[in-house]
């Protein structure tokens, strides 16, 4: 395995009880190592703590115990070295598409001319040329999420965190977005941590699928995906893909049943 860039060390999270209720264990002590250029998908049923784990890596939530190291340094809060794409549309509605993509660069104090080049290149990469001066409201959900990806990448983060970014999109758009993201990853070799509950999505994108168990969440399986790159959407119908899917479906099914209280 390539050198470790992100190390999750015994990270757990307990949410305090609401109105005198019992505290909720969202995440059991969890260990995970992410190598440079890995594309890891975290797969699990809803409420398994996978988003909590990602938010802790982003620095938006604090672990109750344990720590997360990025390049050997402990994470204490959010920062530009970890780009995040959320499931909800989080483009700044008062900024145009180009201004949204430039947001992080502006926060760094990068001069305007330099910003313009980077923005142009990422606008191109996510296929949004011609929409630079549109406001987010004028764009479809898929286009907004592409902008959000460009906005996160423009910052040149060490690792890209995605929290079910395509969850609100229709099936066709989701497929296209997966290919777009995978294409960018294949070309630029970013390190990616991608949370999803969609099995096909998890396999198609990943170099490793991490399966999480139902609440309290913990890592149940860590499965390498040896499918060759570049991947084409037709790969989803190959026997290798299908057998992986069958295996993961089985893993997830047990967890989903437990989460729903079915035995």
């Amino acid at each position, binding site marked *: 395995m390539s050198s470790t860039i992100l190390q999750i060390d015994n990270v757990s999270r307990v949410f305090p009880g609401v109105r005198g209720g019992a505290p909720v264990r969202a995440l059991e002590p969890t260990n995970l190592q992410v190598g440079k250029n890995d594309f890891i998908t975290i797969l699990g049923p809803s409420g398994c703590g996978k988003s909590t784990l990602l938010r802790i890596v982003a620095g938006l939530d604090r672990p109750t115990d344990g720590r997360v190291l990025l390049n050997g340094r402990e994470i204490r809060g959010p920062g530009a070295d970890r780009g995040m794409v959320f499931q909800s549309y*989080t483009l*700044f509605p008062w900024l145009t598409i180009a201004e949204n993509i430039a947001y992080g660069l502006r926060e760094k104090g990068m001069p305007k001319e330099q910003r313009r080049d980077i923005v142009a290149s990422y606008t191109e990469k996510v296929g949004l040329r011609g929409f630079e001066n549109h406001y987010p409201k004028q764009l479809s959900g898929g286009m907004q999420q592409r902008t959000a990806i460009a906005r996160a990448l423009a910052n040149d983060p060490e690792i890209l*965190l995605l929290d079910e970014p395509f969850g609100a999109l229709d099936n066709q758009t989701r497929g296209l977005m997966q290919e777009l993201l995978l294409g960018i990853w294949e070309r630029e070799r970013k390190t990616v941590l991608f949370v999803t509950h969609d099995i096909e999505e998890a396999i198609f994108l990943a170099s490793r699928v991490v399966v999480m168990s139902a609440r309290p969440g913990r890592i149940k399986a860590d499965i390498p995906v040896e499918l060759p790159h570049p991947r084409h959407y037709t790969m989803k119908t190959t026997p290798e893909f299908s057998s992986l899917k069958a295996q993961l479906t089985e893993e997830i099914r047990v967890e989903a049943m437990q989460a729903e209280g079915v035995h």
Partner: protein
Amino acid sequence: MPRPLEPVSQGTRVTLGISFFVLFVAAWAFATLGGFVSRTFLADPITMLQDGWLLLTRFGFLSDIGVTVWRVVGGFIIAAMVAVPLGIMMGAYKSFEAFLEPFVSFARYLPASAFVPLLILWAGIGEMQKLLVIFIGSVFQIILMVAVAVGNTRRDLVEAAYTLGSSDQGVVKRVLIPANAPEIAEILRLVLGWAWTYVIVAELIGSSSGIGHMIIDSQALLATGQMIFGIIVIGIIGLISDFLFKAVNRKLFPWRLA
């Protein structure tokens, strides 16, 4: 019968809006010109217009209007300059909110008009006193409403800004403020409307100019036509300022309509 929530065309909207004004004036004319109400207590529309014309041409009412507008705008701008930053601070920083919110909530219920006698004692009957009445009437309202608006900023936008490298200050400057700017403008528009009621109250007592002063003067002469004209002028100015505010907001915040 129209369906609930079903929109109407722009033409219908304007026609309906105007027709109520027409109906209102017609009822007024019928009651007064028809002799159902004593002229001593309520002037008819025609007398009102004649009185208004006299006020404007012979008694320099235009300068009264000017003075009143100046007081409202002056007091309101001072209040906004104090209240908007405070409101943003309260919305953004919870400790600041905990510190000021109880007092501001209390002060908000102090009626500005009740301060008039006290303010005359403190500031005399000059312009300062008028400005202070409007200031007291508006400032606490603006603070609280702005604080609530800023406090309700979408959390995911704030989180996105942090993951893009914003500092705490950057989040306030480049997320909380721009995200709420249209709402703050809307709050100012609302409170400006209330400021108009305070200025008249301030002018009713211890004043020698302004629309309110004219109204109280006319009362001594039982000139109900003039009084009504004064009240209507206030309404019209309010309508104009509202319209201007909305037009400016549309220009300033195109992304809202995009």
